[in-house]
Structures are given as C-alpha cells and as structure tokens.
C-alpha cells in the first residue's frame, strides 16, 4: 500500500522548470536556440546552475535579455558575447581555449601522459626483472645456435 502511494506521488511529480511560459518566444526555432544558449551560460547568482535552470531573478532577466537579442537578429555567438562582455568568460560553462585556460583544457591530457609514462616504466621494469640475464654458458650456446641457424 505504502509502495503504491509512493509510486503515485512519484508519477504525479513533474520536474520544475525555471523558464516561465511568459518568457518563451512564439517562434519555436528561436526559442530552441535560446534554450540551447542559456544551457551554456552560468548563472552568477547560483553559480552551479545554468541561467536556464536557475530561479534567480537575475537569471530570469538574462533569459529575457538573451531572447530579445535573438529576436533582434543576433547570431548565437553574438548573443553569448553580449553576456560574456558584461559578466566575463566566467559565465561560459564551456570556457574558450586560450592562454589562461591552457591548464584547464590540457590538464587531463597531462595527467594521462604522466600516468602513461609511469605505467610504461613499471611494466618495463617488471619485464626486465622477470627475464633474468643468461649465464655465460647459456649465452655461448645461444650464440652458437644462432650462428648455425644463419648458416
């Protein structure tokens, strides 16, 4: 009974949407672009949310402003630049690739390379340890056999 009640509640629950119907543009294509862009922009009030997610009043203002820009004919890049020029690259959830963000972008690669070198060194050493050197007798015999083979 309790499980069924819980299920009923779960089914009745709908996800909360920050984007209000009154904000949305009539043109579905434009609205889709606005949604896509606002999912790439950080809300400066609730910083781990996008302006698409955030219920902050400033996020609402920025969503409306973004839609105004798109309606006025801005490209996606221009609309994003409009906000980045005011709040900085910090609002871009996909930061640009430049000198300041070099470590951010290349850091994982650096760790991978360092780890790879470590693993290679370890495996190399283990192989060297697993195969002990030939004794002088064995080496002489091996040389003889190889020579016979070559002949």
């Amino acid at each position, binding site marked *: 009974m309790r499980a069924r009640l819980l299920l009923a509640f779960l089914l009745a629950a709908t996800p909360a949407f920050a984007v209000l119907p009154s904000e949305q543009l009539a043109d579905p294509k434009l609205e889709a672009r606005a949604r896509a862009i606002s999912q790439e922009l950080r809300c*400066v*009030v609730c*910083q781990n949310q996008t302006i698409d997610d955030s219920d902050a*009043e*400033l996020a609402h203002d920025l969503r409306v*402003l973004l839609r105004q820009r798109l309606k006025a004919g801005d490209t996606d890049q221009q609309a994003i630049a409009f906000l980045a*020029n*005011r*709040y*900085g690259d910090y609002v871009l959830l996909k930061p640009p690739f430049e000198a300041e963000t070099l470590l951010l972008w290349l850091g994982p690669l650096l760790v991978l390379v360092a780890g790879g070198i470590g693993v290679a060194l370890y495996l190399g050493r283990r192989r060297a340890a697993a195969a002990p050197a030939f004794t002088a007798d064995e080496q002489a015999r091996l040389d003889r056999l190889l020579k016979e083979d070559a002949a």
Partner: protein
Amino acid sequence: MKRLLFILPVALFAAVIGAFMLGLRHDPSHITSVLIDKPLPAFALPAVRNNQGLASADFKGEPMLLNVFASWCVACREEHQMLLQLKQQGVVIQGLDWKDDAADGARYLVENGDPYIKAGNDVSGRTGIDLGVAGVPETFVVDGRGRVRYKFIGPIDADDWENTLKPLLQRLRSET
C-alpha cells in the same frame, strides 16, 4: 627508488588537498569585473529622489565611488552607516538603485539617510547588467576620467575602507 614510489602518491595527495584548502579561502561570489580599466558603459538613469538622476557622464574630474544598492537589500543596510561616514569625510559617492521602485528607493534614503551626491533608479536592472552587477551591494571605484578601476563586492566595512578603498582613491586622486 622504492621509497620515491611510496612518497610520490602521498606528495601528490598532499598537493591536491593543499589546492582544495586554498580553494576554500576563495569566495566564488567574487567574480572579477570585465570593466576594470575600461570606461563605464553609457547610461542615463532617472532620479531616485526629486533631484537629478545619474548618468555615466557624471563620472569625471575626480575619482568617485559608484555604489549599487536597493531598498530590498539587507546587506546594504549594514553598509549604509559606513557610506554616511564616508560622505562626511568628503568621499564622492554616487548611487545606483538596482531593480527597485524609485519610490521604495527614495523612502529608503529618507529613512536611513542619503550618502549619495546623485542617485539613479534602474528599475529594469538593465544598467546593472551592463555593469556586470551580480548582486547588491557592489561598489565600483571610478577614476577622474570615468574609467572603472576596481570593483568591491559586498558591504564595505571599516577595514575594507582603510585597507583597500581609501589607499586606492588616494592613488587615483594623485593621478588626476
């Protein structure tokens, strides 16, 4: 060699923890302003009170503070006494009443005292957005040529004034 292999992960772990601890001291709400060393974006706002409004052209001649406030902002009340004291010391402070009804802003200034030379009302918040305002209070330090030189986030207390804003204003005054 064996010892090095043991020490290396420990050292790496300590470095990561160190970086995290530094991160704890960093306040993420302090976003660097993109306006630093750039002129104020152009704006002309209606008055909060019965006298004149505030325009970007008002920032010239001497260094000034541009204080962003609102009647609904609790931290602004905390800061207000400090601003009134600064006004008495002769610091030029201009006010930007952000996302607020002019009537509410005016009442706030009547009830708490008015530290501003001029105060402009930005009811839509658009001018604030042009300035990159994320919340209130924020205070911009603008030099005698109308360029933003510093942005202070949060309420100014006596320490902030003595250690940060006062020396900066003195330096800017000697520039002009």
